[in-house]
């Protein structure tokens, strides 16, 4: 490895705690509101919006 940051320390010493297991959705109310908003916006223009999203190939 070409890195300079290999300190030689065993990583257990300074390893962060493993990520905790995810809880259920943090804010169900906020999500319900978001879903309501998505649903409302999709009723009117979804088809035209999707049809008009045309890109050229890239990279």
């Amino acid at each position: 490895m070409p890195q300079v940051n290999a300190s030689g320390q065993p990583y257990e010493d300074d390893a962060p705690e493993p990520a905790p297991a995810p809880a259920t959705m943090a804010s169900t109310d906020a999500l319900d509101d978001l879903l309501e908003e998505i649903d409302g916006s999709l009723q009117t223009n979804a088809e035209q919006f999707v049809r008009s999203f045309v890109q050229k190939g890239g990279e």
Partner: protein
Amino acid sequence: MRIVGLETEYGITDPDRPGANPILLSSRLVSACRDALGGLTARWDYGGEDPLQDQRGMRRERRYATGDLLTDSPEYDEAARGVTLRRRRGSWEDPAHLNAVLPNGARFYVDHAHPEYSGPEVRTARDAVRWDAAGDAIVLAATRRYEEIEGERVSLYKNNVDGKGASYGTHENYLIPRDVDFDALAVALTPHLVTRQVYTGAGRVGLGAFGDAAGFQMSQRADYMETEVALETTLRRPIVNSRDEPHATRGRWRRLHLIIGDANCLEVPNLLKLGTTSLVLAAIEAGDERLEELELATPVEDVRTVSRDLSLSARLTLRSGERATALEIQRALLEIARSYADDAADAEIVARWEGVLDRLGRDVMEAAREVEWVAKLQLMGRLRAKHEAAQGVPMAWDDARLAAMDLQWSRLGDGLAWRLAQAGAVERLTTDAEVAQAVAQAPSDTRARLRGAAVVGLGEIVDAAGWSTVVIDRDTRHGNLEVVHLDDPHEATNALLDSLLDG
């Protein structure tokens, strides 16, 4: 960790004029970006571009290269058979080739028909995530400025497909010692690239390159991978790209350029994408023989198989004749990678990698806070359930509302992915303050520091900058351009540039 970097091509559209020329939109956006940054940008130095050299040792002749491969064409000089300094100065005013080298060491420019943000060189996957998020913020600020200047709207999407056949890329770059055999590397890395989709996929509504079959799959890019190794990036797209353009001392380094990855709006998949791949590369560099047992018999087909296997149960055939699921292959790679985790940043990757595989293995939906395709699938599942409860009929996967939601997911500014993060429903790794700092400043521990500092502090005399050069013009008659070479990406200091910066 090694030096890495991340490039993002954004989808671009004028919502009021769907047919607007995307090259023109992108050029104006780069111009607006320069303006938003108060003119603190430099032009691009094409001197380091070398798009036709192949990692496998050959060189594509220029006349046999398709136009899209010729990234140096804005300043290529036919007579000199290369990019010359005179030529570099001459094309500065050409609006069709707008570039901006940014204060944070990144490059923002027009790549074919898309605006592209190429992040600065960083040393950890966390920094890659941070400067990638900074790119989103910079590009969003540019769209706001664009709308003020042009009096027209523009929308940017951090995705990879339009659902009508077009795909545009998100590219990863990894610095690798030159003495690593490229052919062996490509073979050994492929099982990881095929199976990491289970946690890196951004999710996609539609199956097939043209989205002609209804359904949901893990990856945006899977249906566009057609071969194992190739030089091209726009046709016959390969799992492992072989462009040999190191942007560093050629005799010492390779730059592995991968085009298979999805653009990630969530931060954890971005972290894992770079972190796990770097660790697998460390195992390859060390010649770890355990990797051979994981080689796949038909990797190109397997990319599609894994992307469509939402229950994570499909068995891939290994070259040995045995069969294994993507999760089993990932668990084996994790065990190998453990041996190469040599600092706290690597240890975080290993812990997260293990955690996400465990959760995916128990119940895919347990990973909805961290895996993008799962978060997207879950939100769509809720909309479908709501619809079914109200209407009594299920919402089919070819319903335009789901395709619209897929696009809205990645729209800069109000995208659903970021709305979920704001609602605390998906995990964030960065803070707003960290991202704001990365908008204004380059990483301090790579040569990007010099590029960014030169753009900010030496604007008057910096003629151009590239990945491995800063071109200085301090002769009042402009008769003498000095090219400062920064051929070691680890090197964050330079005698001449630092003396000018201190002066």
